[in-house]
């Protein structure tokens, strides 16, 4: 390892070691020289990852371009004393989260379509407050409803490197259950079959600038 790489590796190690929250690549690169190229950044992060291999109790996790040290799951049973008490999500919250994760980007109306019930107030609110979901853009359909997807905090919480690592994703894709198929309501109200019943709220903040 070159002296340079080792030098920055130590700095980034100390930084991430002390930081409870994950750090974005952008924030990490502030600690590299201003003229550093991608190669240095990549080499530093690779060296750091190698330092925390399976022989360590920690691993260097990357979640959608954000980095953090986390303890390795295989020793979780020995660390039970550290467990945080958590307020369990309601069933509606859990299902909504799963639908957003597996179907993203997905509109509220589509979530309601899959669950067959309207989302009560507070369900998206809680997921948003946990920092697990974020708006992903707007759908090109009447009313231009907001679509939702998961955040890097979601990946961090569930120990996923990438959204494609969701359990069972490939199988679900193969079975066609993630495709927007025919739903009962198509046969209920043929008039507004696409199910997007959002009010036209796209206008009030729709200034396109930049």
């Amino acid at each position: 390892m070159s002296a340079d790489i080792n030098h920055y590796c130590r700095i980034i190690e100390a930084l991430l070691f002390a930081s409870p929250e994950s750090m974005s690549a952008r924030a990490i690169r502030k600690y590299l020289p201003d003229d550093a190229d991608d190669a240095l950044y990549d080499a530093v992060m690779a060296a750091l990852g190698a330092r925390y291999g399976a022989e360590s109790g920690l691993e260097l996790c990357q979640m959608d371009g954000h980095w953090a040290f986390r303890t390795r799951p295989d020793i979780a049973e020995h660390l039970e004393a550290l467990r945080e008490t958590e307020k369990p999500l309601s069933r509606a919250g859990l299902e909504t989260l799963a639908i957003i994760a597996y179907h993203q980007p997905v509109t509220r109306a589509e979530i309601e379509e899959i669950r067959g019930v309207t989302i009560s107030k507070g369900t998206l609110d809680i997921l948003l407050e946990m920092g697990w979901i974020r708006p992903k853009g707007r759908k090109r359909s009447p009313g231009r409803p907001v679509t939702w997807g998961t955040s890097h905090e979601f990946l961090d919480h569930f120990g996923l490197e990438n959204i494609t690592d969701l359990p069972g994703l490939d199988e679900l894709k193969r079975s066609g259950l993630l495709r927007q198929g025919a739903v009962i309501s198509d046969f209920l109200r043929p008039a507004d079959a696409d199910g997007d019943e959002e009010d036209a709220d796209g206008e009030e903040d729709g200034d396109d600038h930049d």
Partner: protein
Amino acid sequence: MPPINDTFQEDPRNNSHQLSFFLVLDGYEGPIDLLLELARDQKIDLAEIAILPLAEQYLAYISRAEELDIDIAADYLVMAAWLAYLKSRLLLPEPEPDEALETLDMAEALKQQLLRLEAMRKASQDLMALPRLGRARFRSGTNWHPDRQIRIAHQASLYDLLEAYGQIAGRQDAEVLTITPSHLYSIEEAVARLSSLIKDNKGWNNLLSFLPPNLQSAFDYRSALAAHFSASLEMVRDGQAHLRQDQQFGDIYLTASEQKQP
């Protein structure tokens, strides 16, 4: 209206039955969830579910609830109507091949919807079984850079931002709804005011002299003047007062009606 505990005395069993039934229905997250539960009773593998018996089970469930006079949420009833329609189409031979196909599509859509929700339910369990942060993986316990603070980084999450905007919007809304201060002088107020004033002030008095003091703005003044003028007309009509104007656009004088004109 019969005494409330009549039903209780007549049939306490029925009542408790209703209660438990209601709780059962209440425990479902909507009609699809109920269908899923019924389907599970029928088959382990949802892909092989028979739609017709499932529709019949659901309809029986809902009609039992209706017999018991239980409030059933609208989505359950909409689903019941849909399933009744599907059932009739499944039972009667379709005259046109196109319509027969549509019936199959409907049954397939129902099956797909059940499978889709079932898949998401399983996915949510799979998610929760992952080595989650704070449960099976832990973050750094410390932020130990001590002492001197070189720079303060302000922190805010997207949630904070949206919540703040929601608050502003909500606050604005509250103002619109609750604060509707009206400085307009009503005619009723002016009538009440004038009636008492003209009793204490004998003879002809300029209408303007009866206007309330401390009228802040031109708007308040105009409003008070208009109200008092209208009030004076009303009082004349009711025989309480007389009005006099000596020339066009001239001052208007008011006196109580028992005061005879000179």
